[in-house]
């Protein structure tokens, strides 16, 4: 069946993407200044004996190619290795930080999509000239503002001044509101632009005229006919959305002092904690592949013309 073939092809491409990402990350960290042994020693005792012991234990004396192949092999077997910095299995480190980040990302994505659809449907069409100009301007502003700035503005107004939400931490749903909004706003801005553009284009299509000539309400035409057409280009952005969420989480978690993958990644990069960085890259690549495959399948779901027997 063609659907299975499509998925198989996606997975095969995904493996190549994953390999390329893992290799690129490996090379980048290899080229970065600083010694691996220094990272592992960290703040601990530093004697030649200890250094020799570390080199022997981690196999750092072997040629770089050997280390690289060994790393790939272990990764393929599902072994993410041990963190240099924390001296614990990477899977454990990431596992306990994954939940807060996932909660944040899913909430932000849902909020962003909801906002975008509402705004786009509310402002599409020729008659609503002013609301659309205003929202278009706000969207542009949100897309072009760095998320840490949005976060700081939200914090200083809603938390410091009015005390509506906690300033930092991960205690309860109230603490999730501001980080999620910070992450959701740029997403909503871009998605709303794409969706409205799609709605406007669909509105000019002959089948919309046909639907209106049937006596269907304009709002119904917009939701039932135009929105599905407008969603197609938006689905293409799913991969971009995933990237924004991942990159945004790193910054937002920092600004709001939330635990999560962002914090872990940031620490790992600054301290050259190779296994953790590589694990994050691997997970991200896998995430991309999953999200893009899902987007392709969504296409098939939305557009019957692509379903070929």
């Amino acid at each position: 069946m063609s659907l299975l073939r499509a998925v198989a092809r996606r997975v095969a491409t995904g493996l190549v993407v994953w390999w390329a990402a893992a290799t690129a990350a490996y090379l980048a960290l290899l080229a970065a200044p600083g010694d691996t042994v220094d990272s592992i020693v960290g703040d601990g005792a530093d004697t030649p004996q200890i250094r020799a012991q570390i080199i022997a234990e981690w196999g750092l004396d072997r040629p770089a190619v050997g280390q690289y192949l060994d790393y790939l092999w272990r990764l393929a077997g599902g072994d993410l290795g041990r963190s240099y910095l924390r001296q614990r299995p990477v899977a454990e480190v990431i596992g306990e930080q994954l939940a807060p980040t996932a909660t944040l990302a899913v909430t932000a994505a849902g909020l962003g999509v909801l906002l975008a659809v509402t705004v786009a449907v509310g402002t599409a069409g020729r008659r609503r000239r002013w609301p659309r100009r205003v929202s278009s301007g706000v969207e542009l502003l949100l897309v072009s503002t760095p998320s840490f700035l949005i976060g700081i503005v939200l914090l200083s107004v809603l938390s410091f001044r009015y005390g509506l939400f906690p300033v930092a931490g991960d205690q309860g749903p109230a603490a999730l509101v501001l980080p999620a909004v910070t992450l959701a706003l740029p997403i909503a801005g871009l998605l709303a632009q794409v969706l409205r553009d799609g709605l406007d284009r669909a509105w000019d299509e002959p089948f919309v005229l046909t639907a209106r000539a049937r006596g269907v309400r304009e709002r119904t035409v917009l939701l039932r006919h135009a929105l599905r057409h407008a969603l197609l280009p938006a689905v293409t952005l799913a991969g971009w959305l995933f990237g924004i969420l991942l990159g945004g989480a790193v910054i937002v978690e920092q600004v709001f002092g939330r635990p999560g993958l962002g914090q872990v990644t940031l620490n790992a990069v600054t301290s050259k904690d190779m296994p953790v960085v590589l694990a994050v890259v691997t997970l991200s690549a896998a995430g991309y592949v999953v999200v893009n495959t899902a987007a392709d399948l969504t296409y098939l779901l939305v557009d019957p013309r692509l379903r070929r027997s």
Partner: protein
Amino acid sequence: MAPLLAVEDLHVTFDSPTGVVEAVRGVSFTVGAGECVAVVGESGSGKSVTARTLVGLAGAGARVRAARLDLADRDVRSYRPRDWRRVRGRLAGLVTQDALVALDPLRTVGAEVGEVLAAHDIVGRRERAGRVVHLLDEVHVPEPGRRARQYPHQLSGGLRQRALIASAIAGEPALLIADEPTTALDVTVQAQILRLLAERRATGAGLLLISHDLAVVAQVADRVLVMRDGRIVEQGPTGRLLRAPQHPYTRQLLAAVPSASSRGRRLGEPAQVRDGCAVPVLRRTPLPARPVVRPDDAVLDAVGLTRRYGPHTVVRDVSFRVARGETLGLVGESGSGKSTIARLVAGLLAADAGTVTFESARWSGVPERTRRPLRRRLQLICQDPLGSFDPRYTVGRVVAENLDPGPDRTDRVLALLHRVGLGPDLLHRHPRSLSGGQRQRVAIARAIAPRPSLIICDEPVSALDVSIQAQVLDLLGELRAADGTALLFISHDLGVVHHLADRVLVLHDGVVVEQGPVGDVFSYPRHDHTRSLLDALPTLVTAG
């Protein structure tokens, strides 16, 4: 009793960045119950805007003004969007233009037809599916139950048009408005759709038919209105209007229709008199004599051409010759393999079997490098000239592309533009800023530039209005006479082929079912398919 629809002094204007556009300027007419009224006009005449205004969908930024606009005894002039919603589909059903794109591709045919039933709460949710099947059956869709579950792209053009009509009549409107209901359909399907629409009159519905094609509406309309530039220039009973047209424009429209009787004569004014000048054509002037055809001297020889796409054989064992200076017509319905043959002959597609010989040299199955020196002897004109131009090129550059470089190249471009009836002011314009007729003239200028021995014309006039079509056909007739160029003329329009071609090849499902001199084939068709094509062809019974 008051007529179903009464329109008096209707004006529709649009605000555009360049000023106010008056699309409809003072139109008055009526449609009675059970009556079929046709509005005929070329693009830009305001006929579609008139149709859409009657259901309150004139378009964004439209201003509508009328002395009277009564629909089923209701004055709809002051209607707000909410009121219009109750009119649409219920009092007035609109069959929108171009069936191929008028159904939502993401929804099933059944959902589209059933939408009217839901919007006006005509039948309950439970009975809706049953009613949809019944409606599809009523417009003669075979296997209506299965079709209702399919998506528009799975249906042929004719079936989509039927589904569209089913959705327009679902609310049993008193007035049915059909905007170009048969464009993009094959002649045989076109005839069926017209009969179907005419059937609606038996239910007492009034029918307003919008079309650019006089011959099409003449078959079913009781009365015809001829529109031009937003005004009705002439109206009357169909028979009278066709036999004794009063207005020069009506006469010009009638004269522009190519057919057997127009062979060897001009369809419009000479090419030098251009767009906008309505010189009444009372008698057709003859075209220059056709080039001398030398049957023994073949420009093109195709033998046993076969082409498959996957499991489908779209062209099967097709053989024909084009003699020097001869015009060979290639007719058939959509999907009959016409365009595939054009691409095989042009060397743009490789044949699975068969050979093509051009100018006595092997043309098929040889590397492109071998073909290239001869390429300039074989030119192509297609249906959509704009798509064949580099969007960044000016008219001058488009034509110059096909000429040898040299210091006098601009002069040669200007001479070519002059030959196709275009002025030197167009040299630096971009093709997209030209009208459809002008664009096709540029394409012709480019094609004749290297003095080819054969021009493949793939539906060159299908997208043009009838009077522009007449000018382009006249131009092709003149050029062919002057240069002795052979034409492979592909068209779905039998009238055009009869007017222009010497011999004709009738295709059906990728097979040549009949070929011979046009007079013989069209007067004494031997194959059933040729006969059904000719029967379906709408013809004008006119005085001249």
